[in-house]
């Protein structure tokens, strides 16, 4: 039992969970690609962890598994940045929708009042 086995098991459980969320349409495909990518990269690198050694040497990382954590960490940065971009887009859309809804309701009220006035006229005449 070493750290690579733990990471591999975690990556498999994680990938299964992500795919299940997609299968049940709880998670939309466009937001799952990052997670699938991260899970796959972690899984592959924990199985073929000898590939980490030369890269760790080049980067002067004494303990190769920390390279694995670094990669996971950078993925998380990417995902979080992506999420805040999505959040900004959603915010702008909901603002636009609320504005349009308010304007449509005001227009409806005006039309309703005009309609009521003409109805009243009809009753008077």
């Amino acid at each position, binding site marked *: 039992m070493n750290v690579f086995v733990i990471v591999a098991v975690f990556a498999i459980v994680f990938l299964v969970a992500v795919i299940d969320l997609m299968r049940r349409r709880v998670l939309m495909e466009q937001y799952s690609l990052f997670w699938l990518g991260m899970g796959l990269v972690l899984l592959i690198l924990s199985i073929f962890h000898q590939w980490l050694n030369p890269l760790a040497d080049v980067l002067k990382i004494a303990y190769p598994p920390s390279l694995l954590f670094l990669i996971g960490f950078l993925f998380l940065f990417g995902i979080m940045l992506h999420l805040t971009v999505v959040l900004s887009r959603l915010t702008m859309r909901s*603002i636009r929708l*609320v*504005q349009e809804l*308010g*304007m449509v309701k*005001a227009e409806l009220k005006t039309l309703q009042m005009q309609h009521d006035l003409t109805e009243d006229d009809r009753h008077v005449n």
Partner: protein
Amino acid sequence: MNDALVIIPALNEERSVADVIRSIFHSAPNVDIVVISDGSTDNTAHVARGAGAQVIELPVNLGIGGAMQTGYRYAFDKGYHFAVQIDADGQHDPADLPRLLDEARQHHGDMVLGSRYVQKTAYRSSRSRRAGMILLATLVRVAVGYPIHDTTSGYRVVNDRVIRLFSEYYPIDYPEVEVLVLLHRHKLTIHEIPVEMKERQAGVSSITMFKSGYYMLKVSLAILLEILRKGSVKGEARS
């Protein structure tokens, strides 16, 4: 329909909104008024309607930028030539409004800014507040290339070109200063004229001591980003 629309964002102001509407109609009878009830839970909309304003009720609170932009979008949809922004807390005197509108009608700038600092007026403010305003004025001067004395004034009249721009983009929060640089990027001009500024009658400044750090940071960043943008950004019409 008149050619000028006064936009008043209001959040739970059932007690003051009618007076504001009446005083504006009194000083400037030939304007229309739209009140944007920004998720109010009281009778603001009903009271404003009773006082003769058009009312747009937003189902949730959008904050000052989103509410104000609703007014600009309404002005754009209805084809108004001028839109007016005036603080509803009694700080701005509606008696100045005809003068501001005249300046706009004579094409003295795409935005006419009612300013506290162009000439000596009775307005006074704290030292830290003045320091902040000097810093913002300096940043804006660097960005637009000419001095604007009262960058945070919320007393403004804009023409149809600016209405169109604002209907497409308007900052979410603390819009006053950022908008000046936005206008400059779109080659729109700003004309400042002095107005009398009264002490706030009701409410407190939206900028408390606690928030002022965030305010300065956010506004400075917005100005720097505006400088970085150059030309048009996706989603903004070329003007």
